[in-house]
């Protein structure tokens, strides 16, 4: 408990020191990063979706959606990659690793 106090103090102190030391600011919210944040948002949606519709369907939708968002035009890729990835992952993890994926509340 004393340890935790010391470490917390150290962390705060270092944070203050860093603020003082570096003059430059890091742009976490720039134009380049909007794509990153939107992708993160889509990923969060995906995680939520898993608990609703289950892993396979959510993964299919997510891969399709994210690649659409990345402006992939080819329909072969837009359909093929999600189907293959989901099938391989689902097969390997349920058959060989005996992982129970969340089925979602709908099923």
């Amino acid at each position, binding site marked *: 408990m004393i340890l935790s106090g010391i470490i917390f103090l150290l962390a705060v102190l270092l944070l203050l020191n*860093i603020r003082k030391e570096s003059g430059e600011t890091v742009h976490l919210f720039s134009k380049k990063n909007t794509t990153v944040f939107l992708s993160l948002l889509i990923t969060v949606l995906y995680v939520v979706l898993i608990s609703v519709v289950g892993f396979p369907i959510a993964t299919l939708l997510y891969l399709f959606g994210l690649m659409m968002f990345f402006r992939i035009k080819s329909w072969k890729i837009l359909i093929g990659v999600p189907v293959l990835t989901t099938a391989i992952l689902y097969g390997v993890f349920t058959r060989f690793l005996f992982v129970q994926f969340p089925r979602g509340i709908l099923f």
Partner: protein
Amino acid sequence: MALEVLSLTFDPITLLTILVGVTAGISIGAMPGLTSTMGIALLMPLTFAMEAHTGMMLLIGEFVGAIYGGSITAILINTPGTPSAAATVLDGYPFTKRGESGRAIGISTVASFGGGIISGIIMILVAPVLANIALKFSAPETFALAFFGISIISSISGKSLLKGLFSGAIGLTLALIGVDNITGFTRFAFGSTFLMGGLAVIPVMVGLFAMSQCFLSIEELEATNVITQKIKSALPTKQDLKTIWPTILRGGLTGTFIGIIPGAGGDISAFVSYDMERRVSKHPELFGTGLPEAIAAPESSNNGTTGGALIPLLTLGIPGDSNTAVMLGALMIHNLIPGPMLFVQQAAVVDTLFIGFMIANVFMLILGLLGIPLFVKIVQVPRKILVPVIIVLCLVGSYAINNNYLDVVVMLVAGVIGYALVKGGFPLSPIVLALILGPMAEGNLRRSLVMSKGSVMIFFERPISAAFIVIAVVCLFLPIIKRWIVMYRNFKKSSAA
């Protein structure tokens, strides 16, 4: 015993696993934006269904392959596939400009193989001796060792000492989450039963190393790796082999030594060896124009760190870099607690890992010399397709460890934090190392204080623990002292003038 080791290693499934690991490693390493640590974190869930030694061979194969694979894109498209190959770009790309990319890859392959084998031999010779010494360690020494590991990685790994220390402090704080082992007091759980068990290390690592890397890759989605040059043969000529063998010897040894030091990995050793080679060279002015020995030096050196980094991992349970930190997590899941006792209780597994490491290097040599066209194809897969698939892999991997949905959330949060930290110039490996070594340091600190009835002097009365603590403190203050000396010299100069 010897028979057992042979039957474990030369089992067809084990050999196949090593081959898969090395192939995956070379592909992952060759792809700019995918690092070898990320590869290990992503492959780890697959090892759970395997036997311990087979699973570890997959990861070691990946490690060996990825460190080599970085050189392929360094040579072909002037972009290092992994940070370790940054030094290879300097002389590797000029070869491609001359149309000799096959020759450069051949040299790099042989050099990586040489470096790997040298480090393997040193590992086999040194590790058992070191483990024997470490057997005598008790609580104070182990605490000092963990303290040494955390502080040295914090001071070496980042560009700024403060940022490194800050990362280390974050890791230690994260390590505190959960129920206190000795008193049963709950720390930082915020009333959540999930947090009471402590953070699972693997989702945090997958998030920090793999997920954050995906975010970074999304920033540069349009980057494509187009390789135009056709590679005919990657077999090096006799003449080239003759020029590079002394370089390989030097690079391999330097790399192994640097690999042993916690916090210093392939990226540092590659530059050290490159610089060393330039100094001993008869024609240093030609460096940067495409010299065989200038590729051989960094490549033998960065693969030298692979065996080097495994030495402290296996003998002391202290990972030498982020790759071995992730491996430590995998070892623990397989109930192999790294440290001196591993050499006593699981001697056959340790020997299998040693031989498997050598086999991985042989596979790397064969794949590198013959399989380049395949890897060139893999490297050209666009990021827009790769990134979504890898994100799904991150999710599945962190879920599969405990079949726990909340681990996925932990992974995602760690990914976002990791992304922000990388953007701010904070190194990530101190976080993971502190997260792993934190509980080890804390438990042994408590135990030693019980041994000494509360006196801190116990750490300084024992020579080994005192030595570790002194080295750690010196490392922490070295940059500050250096700055003072420079300031003092400047002051003297200006007052003299």
